[in-house]
């Protein structure tokens, strides 16, 4: 069940970690770029939030072949490939077709979610614990993430700010970041040159990558987050930007749109960790 956007206490906002991440991503969506968004769920919600609020003309494709749709809000709960999410696209095509659009370099940004990520932006969506043949917990697989992360110019990856997510060594590398970080590592395995992860976004922070060493670098903090808090939730230590950007907090308007129009019923977004912040300062009020 979703909580009201305006929290229990006067002047506070309550939201889940997933909702916070969705808002952070929505803030960096650029209207003059093309996006390839993986399946339904939080990555698509982030793009739709930006499209709904401030970038109505932004173009995106989804794996099952809809090109630049204008979805009808509110979306149905099972929106994957449904008529309301493909509404008023400029073209209805197929998976091979949109993957080819990405192969040709038309997709500026890939937008997707990861279970686990390492310091070079490689990520896992296959299994956690155990071995490939005897996994402790098997997940759904890379889906479209491998082709998106390989072929779009820049990849935006969302995950949670948890130690088990930012790991020294992935249980399984489902999709490529900068691989071992050496120059030309992606090109040596056949991936298009000049591509790679661009931002990693969590509820608390935003990361980029060093142009030379390809290591992950902390570049922004949510208003309620601290450097120490973020580092405590990472197995590896990232580079840290000279000047950390102070990210914006989710707004009441954004949260209302997520809950009433994009993910009515909170099917995906309400299943996270809740936090409450001061609406004016974004500082934790819990």
């Amino acid at each position, binding site marked *: 069940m979703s909580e009201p956007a305006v929290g229990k206490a006067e002047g506070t906002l309550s939201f889940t970690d997933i909702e916070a991440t969705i808002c952070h991503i929505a803030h960096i969506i650029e209207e003059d770029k093309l996006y390839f968004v993986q399946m339904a769920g939080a990555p698509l919600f982030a793009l739709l939030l930006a499209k709904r609020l401030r970038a109505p003309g932004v173009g995106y494709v989804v794996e099952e072949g809809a090109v630049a749709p204008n979805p009808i809000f509110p979306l149905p709960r099972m929106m994957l490939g449904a008529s309301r999410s493909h509404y008023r696209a400029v073209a209805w095509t197929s998976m091979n077709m949109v993957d080819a659009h990405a192969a040709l370099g038309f997709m500026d940004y890939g937008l997707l979610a990861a279970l686990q990520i390492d310091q070079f932006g490689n990520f896992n969506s296959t299994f956690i614990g155990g071995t490939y043949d005897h996994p402790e917990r098997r997940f759904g697989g890379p889906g479209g993430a491998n082709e998106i992360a390989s072929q779009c110019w820049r990849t935006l990856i969302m995950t949670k700010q948890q130690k088990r997510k930012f790991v020294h060594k992935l249980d399984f590398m489902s999709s490529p970041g900068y691989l071992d970080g050496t120059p030309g590592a992606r090109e040596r*395995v*056949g991936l298009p040159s000049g591509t790679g992860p661009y931002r990693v976004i969590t509820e608390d922070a935003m990361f980029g990558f060093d142009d030379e060493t390809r290591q992950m670098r902390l570049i922004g903090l949510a208003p309620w987050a601290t450097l120490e808090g973020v580092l405590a939730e990472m197995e590896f230590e990232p580079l840290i930007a000279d000047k950390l950007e102070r990210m914006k907090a989710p707004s009441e308007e954004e949260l209302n749109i997520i809950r009433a129009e994009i993910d009515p019923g909170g099917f995906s977004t309400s299943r996270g960790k809740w936090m409450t912040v001061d609406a004016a300062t974004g500082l934790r009020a819990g």
Partner: protein
Amino acid sequence: MTVIASGKGEFLPPDPDGFRAYVRDHKERRLVNKVITAQEAVSRYVSDGDYVAYDQNIAVRGPASLFREIIRQRKRDLWLAAKFTWTDVSLLVAGGCVSRVDVGWMESGPVINRAVKEGRLKLIEWSNGALAYRLLAGSLGVPYLPMRYLGGTDTFEQSGAKLTEDPYTGRRVCLVPALYPDVALVHVHQCDVHGNARVFGAGVSPLEMAMCSKKVIISTEEIIEPEEIRRQPQRTTIPYYFVDAVVHAPFGSYPGSTPGLYGADLEHWLEFAAAQVQNKTDEYLEKWVHSMASHEEMLEKRVGEQKLAMMRQSETVREGYYE
């Protein structure tokens, strides 16, 4: 054009000439009536051990009535292409039908996890796009296609892809083996008795799959006149000579939606989800599959006209599909 690295995943060996010989000897070239029941279609065209591909998933325009018929007939040892799927793989695994899955994406809950742990289910890694692309390769009649992803990952290692040097540029490129499934299942909006099929809306790879599969079963919401097909040739997704059987199946993607016609039944999924968590999928299958002789009986006795009417009402968009 050296092979630099090869994944170690098992894959259905591509055999373009073997596929051609099958086509020469078994595919009907004439315009004949191919309408049969789901029972006949699955009995005749799905064999134990077959590699089965299908388009879309149990959420949207999946061949769900055919999944249930496969479970009802207790088909065994199937190898599934799970690209862009959902709980459909779990359903077929719960039904005891599946021994191997080529994974793009699938819902991976208790049923899958248990089957993997107990060694009943072997998974092989690809991605949604790689599986669709393997079908594209199959549809072109070639043994493989080059592509620009998979390389460098553990996914590559657990797949049947290869890393090679391109003889034209000297640069590196991955190859994936073409996929020639034994069976393709495609649920469509409209089809004539000859198998000329129309899919409305975006899709995954219905045409590629129908082209490169030895046996093709179409289930269709509606059977239309051949003359209607010929009046709008551009709307045909799959021409007749690829198709072996046409099954008339209104609400054939139940509990999923068919865009432009009806929305999904969310309650049904919650019931399957609960059955998974409670380890009661046998009871679920007994109720929805084994105790029912057919899709039609299930719709009548388990779903009911009231729910079907609600599903129809919940689809408010016809534009682009039927208009």
